[in-house]
């Protein structure tokens, strides 16, 4: 349904507001596919380009290069009514629920806006849609909440309003950009379960962004790991947690302290150093300056392509769906070839 191909999102940097001073390569060659009804997680530390990727999928940014294909529509080229139409099929849930709600509008107005904009001229119809969706996201009692302003609600309720607003146009795809990272730990699970329920009930495709691996298991089938604007590892969630292959993924799992990560104990150290500059990214593998396994003369020269990983336990290919962009994988394949020879 959604096919992202070699997507680049570069922001132009200007010197003194005028002269060109380079680009921030927030997204630099990302490809993946998402089927209807599938949930996909996207992880990576902050600043790695997750939000930029999502905003481009929502067409809040224009792709610098590459294509986004949604049910055969080239999203990058849309404008006018077609763009509005496309946007009505994609829901957006932001990180900061309070910021995502206009402080001067009541919940009624907030939920009504998408409907008004998208041509629902019948007020009674709008009202029934609002009430239905509010019941669904458990914003009850409806009549009590509708006239309230966002600041009168708790963080969890605010995020439910955001979810209701994203769902009210009955989208096919939901983009959730760190939907729980700003909420109290006590309501995170509830909100994630709500999203999962909605996804299953409406057969939604969901992209769930987080920088926190411990929450991904609540809903996604697939996961990709981003580093410095690129995807470094892509896998079914179980496979990734059992067999994290890219050193960066391993470091992330380590940091998240996920109890299910079998290899967590093996790699104690979080990679030292800062995320790389996106203006002048490192040559070769972008992770090599922080990678303790970096192979001199290889990792710092050539950029690794995604390749299927070798399963640590039985040396079999993990359904061919688990890929990582790391030269170590190639080394491992070579080693295996040597052993079998």
């Amino acid at each position, binding site marked *: 349904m959604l096919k992202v191909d070699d997507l680049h999102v570069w922001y132009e940097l200007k010197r003194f507001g005028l002269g060109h001073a380079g680009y921030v390569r927030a997204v630099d060659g990302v490809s993946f596919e998402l089927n209807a009804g599938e949930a996909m997680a996207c992880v990576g530390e902050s600043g790695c380009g997750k939000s930029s990727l999502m905003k481009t999928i929502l067409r809040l940014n224009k792709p610098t290069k590459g294509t986004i294909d949604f049910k055969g529509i080239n999203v990058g080229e849309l404008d006018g009514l077609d*763009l509005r139409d496309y946007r*009505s099929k994609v829901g957006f849930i932001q990180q900061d629920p309070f910021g995502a709600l206009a402080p*001067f509008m009541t919940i009624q107005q907030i939920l009504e806006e998408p409907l008004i904009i998208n041509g629902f001229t019948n007020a009674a119809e709008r009202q029934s849609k609002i009430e239905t969706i509010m019941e669904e996201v458990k914003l009850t009692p409806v009549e009590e909440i509708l006239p309230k302003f966002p600041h009168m609600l708790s963080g969890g309720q605010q995020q439910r309003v955001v979810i209701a607003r994203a769902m009210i146009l009955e989208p096919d795809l939901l983009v959730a950009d760190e939907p729980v990272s700003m909420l109290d730990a006590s309501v995170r699970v509830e909100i994630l379960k709500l999203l999962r329920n909605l996804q299953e009930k409406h057969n939604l495709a969901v992209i769930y962004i987080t920088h926190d691996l411990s929450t991904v298991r609540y809903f996604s089938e697939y996961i990709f790991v981003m580093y410095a604007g690129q995807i470094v590892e892509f896998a079914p969630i179980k496979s990734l947690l059992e067999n994290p292959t890219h050193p960066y993924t391993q470091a992330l799992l380590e940091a998240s302290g996920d109890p299910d990560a079998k290899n967590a104990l093996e790699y104690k150290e979080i990679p030292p150093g800062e995320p790389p500059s996106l203006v002048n990214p490192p040559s070769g593998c972008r992770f090599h300056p922080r990678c303790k396994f970096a192979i001199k003369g290889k990792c710092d020269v050539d950029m690794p392509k995604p390749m299927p990983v070798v399963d640590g336990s039985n040396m079999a290919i993990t359904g061919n769906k688990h890929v990582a962009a790391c030269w170590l994988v190639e080394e491992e394949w070579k080693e295996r070839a040597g052993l079998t020879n």
Partner: protein
Amino acid sequence: MIRWSEIRQYPSAIVGLAIIFGFILLALYAVITIPYSEALERWRGGEAVVENNPRNARPTWVNWFNQENLPPTLILDSRELPETAISYTTISDDIEEKVITMSFDYEYASFVPELTFFIEADFIEKQPFVEIFWVTPNGEEIRAGEVTPGGQEIYRPTQDDRVMRRVEANSAEVGFFLDPSLAEPTPQKGTYQVRLVGLIFEEESDFEAKLVMYGAVHGIAGTDHLRRDISVALLWGTPIAMAFGLVAALVITAANMIIAATSVWYGGWVDSAIQRVTDVNLILPGLPLLILIGTLYSRSIWVILGMVIALNIFGGGVKTYRSIFLQTRELPYIEAAQAYGAGSRRIIFRYLIPRVIPLVIPALVTSVPAFVFTEATLALLGLGDPVLPTWGKVIENARSQGALFNGYYYWMLEPAVLMMLVGVGFSLVGFALDRIFNPKLREI
């Protein structure tokens, strides 16, 4: 959005609100009690004004502060006297004598500044002949003049040499009232009588007389050099000043806001163009332009208001609001609105502008007096509205007549106090609104 309980915490805001409310009441009072056409007529200085109003009289309230006890205007009119005050006697076949006896009490410590008879005669060929006798409280009778009124006759005894020879003073106004028993010239107190004895020579002929003793004080605000009641201008100046200030502040603020939001939202060349236009507009010399328009085109206050607005549409507010909108644009709810398909116009009017309204309303309220002062400034530069009574016109008249050198301080003071009150009232409310709407600023 804003509750009375919040305002109540700012006593200054209550004072400010009371002042603004007072001005609203005053404006309503003016508009209701003095119809527009009447206000214009009274400010133009029509016949009634010239006949009945004193020149440069002080406001009545000056009597509260000095012992002189200045007289107000006293008008005696034969048409309003009881029948008993008028008698007719037939003298011969075609001569009839009409005697009008008018009396009044005089309890003031100073002299009447100006005294005039208006005698109106009705006749076909032969004019009536009227003799005037002035009887002081101690019984002395002064022959105050002989008039042969031809239609409308204005008779000023002071200008009559024969009368002046009979009184021991430089003017009839003093001579008629002088107390001979005192060394200092002081008016006698008591009941005066004015008798007009007229000989009528025709059957249908008649005459009526009016005596106007112009006051040294008049009304609540005094009168100006053209005998106009200053209170008319102060009263009617109120709705005009309010309308001018509020319309200018509202239209300019709204325009600045819309332009700034458009500039920020579209960015790129739109933003650059708007910023350049604003820069140019900011260096345009506004006052000389207004003077030019006022001199060459029209001094109508509404034309001037239009010009003030036009000159401020791309004013400094555009820069201020732009910097605010640059932050507002980045808020997640704007991004959300785009994501569910809101168009540019909707985002500007429904998402960007409402967000800054709490910042803008206090500024708007605070800016009202500035525009009221602008009107006064223009009036001082001779660009006051030619027909409308405004506060600025009063100040301009006062200045050009040397009010302060001639002791007519109230002439300048009254409009100035009103304008100061406007400034204080709107500022107090504006500051309080700012604290209520933008509580974060309180700590700064």
